[in-house]
């Protein structure tokens, strides 16, 4: 049994919050450059150039890529041979978020009550934490700050099994079409298939952690992703919805078994600032 003091986690989460907001992944930059060579709209090319310049400035000036530094979504993979000691694990993650958002001058975007009061918690907590128990004695933490604009364009639909793959593709494309320029295209489209109502949404979110330069390991889903991506980029929405051929940089599918009566489909839309950083303890 390996012991980890939860206090060790605080500075790690803090750094992940700051780094993920300042430094975009190389996969996003290489995809935008790749799409730029195929882009036909002069306005779109101008917008893509501004985005590339912005990533560069954010890194150089240690500023968040986007002012919406998001909800701190944390994915934890906890090795089953680890014994966490020294305090409350959830509170340690929240403390890391608190310190990261303060010291990184990141925006605090959480309100305490979602409907009636909506008072800002002023430290961006609570984080949204998903913990998975895995074999081994390592602890992996991924922080994926998620902005409100793209999250608002996401949707779960409980489809009929008879809707089939055509129904799934139509729903995903339609969800993107209805979003237009709102979620800050070029977007990444996370698709969760199967499980149940809430698991499909989590699959969609988790799929966004895959690198944009990595193919889906399942050939069947890789083909579906490519077809959906083509249809999305044929919508003409373009960067920022100002028209063009670059609406999505990638479509990522994750699937799980589901009930004989169900076919849950979740679409989680991610803006071009597809931010996530991981650390292994």
């Amino acid at each position, binding site marked *: 049994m390996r012991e980890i003091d939860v206090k060790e986690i605080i500075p790690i989460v803090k750094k992940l919050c700051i780094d993920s907001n300042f430094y975009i992944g190389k996969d996003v930059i290489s995809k935008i450059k790749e799409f730029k060579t195929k882009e*036909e*709209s002069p*306005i*779109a090319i*101008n*917008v893509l150039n*501004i*985005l590339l*310049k*912005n990533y560069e*400035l*954010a890194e150089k*000036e*240690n*500023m*968040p*890529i*986007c*002012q*919406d*530094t998001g909800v701190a979504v944390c994915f934890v993979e906890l090795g089953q041979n680890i014994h966490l000691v020294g305090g409350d694990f959830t509170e340690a993650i929240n403390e890391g978020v608190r310190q990261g958002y303060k010291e990184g*001058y*990141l*925006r*605090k*975007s959480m309100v305490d009550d979602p409907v009636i009061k*909506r008072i*800002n918690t*002023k430290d961006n907590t609570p984080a949204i934490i998903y913990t998975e128990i895995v074999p081994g004695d390592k602890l992996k933490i991924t922080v994926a700050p998620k902005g*409100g*604009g793209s999250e*608002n364009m996401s949707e779960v639909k409980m489809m009929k099994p008879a809707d089939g793959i055509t129904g799934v593709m139509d729903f995903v494309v339609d969800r993107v079409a209805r979003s*237009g*320029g*709102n*979620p*800050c295209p070029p977007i990444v489209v996370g698709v969760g298939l199967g499980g149940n109502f809430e698991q499909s949404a989590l699959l969609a979110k988790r799929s966004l952690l895959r690198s944009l330069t990595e193919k889906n390991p399942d050939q069947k889903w890789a083909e579906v992703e490519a077809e959906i991506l083509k249809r999305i980029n*044929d*919508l*003409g*929405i*373009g960067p*920022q*919805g*100002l*028209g*063009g*051929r670059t609406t999505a940089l990638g479509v990522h599918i994750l699937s799980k078994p589901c009930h004989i009566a169900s076919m849950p489909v979740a679409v989680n839309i991610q*803006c*071009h*600032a597809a931010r996530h950083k991981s650390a292994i303890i």
Partner: protein
Amino acid sequence: MEMDLTTPLKTDDLKDLKIGDQVFITGTIYTARDTAHKRLVELLANGDKIPFDPQGQIIYYVGPAPAPPGRPIGSAGPTTSYRMDPYAPELLDAGIKAMIGKGPRDQSVIDSMIKNKAVYLAAVGGAAVVIANSIKESKIIAYEDLGPEAIREMKVENFPCIVANDIYGNDIYRTEVEKYKR
């Protein structure tokens, strides 16, 4: 076409703008987003004054990141505009001449822009450092309790935007998207 705009704006400054034009704004602009809009429109409905003179002014939909030491403001890109659609016509009626945000507007807002000879300018969402570098001063003038949603008065120089709706009812989100649809 590229154009420089200096605030406050007059109809004359806007009559030659066409959708797709790149504009650079210099002068004073005011920030407001969701809750601030609700409060502003409540004041107008009661016949009260809002915290700044709206005549010829620009409202920027933004909730900036906090200012790091030595800078007037943190990252400050636009937020999505449709959430302000229910309030925008009242503010245009009160004298606002331009709105800066991202994403398409409702027909009711477009109609109000035609009526009031106002424009909607798209800033690039996520280009928050590029935009922050054009903001030279920033101070909170109202609703400090709202944190990032407070109303700020900003002095800007060459703030970059693209004309998304002109005073004639043209809409970039319809016409440009149609061109690239397959």
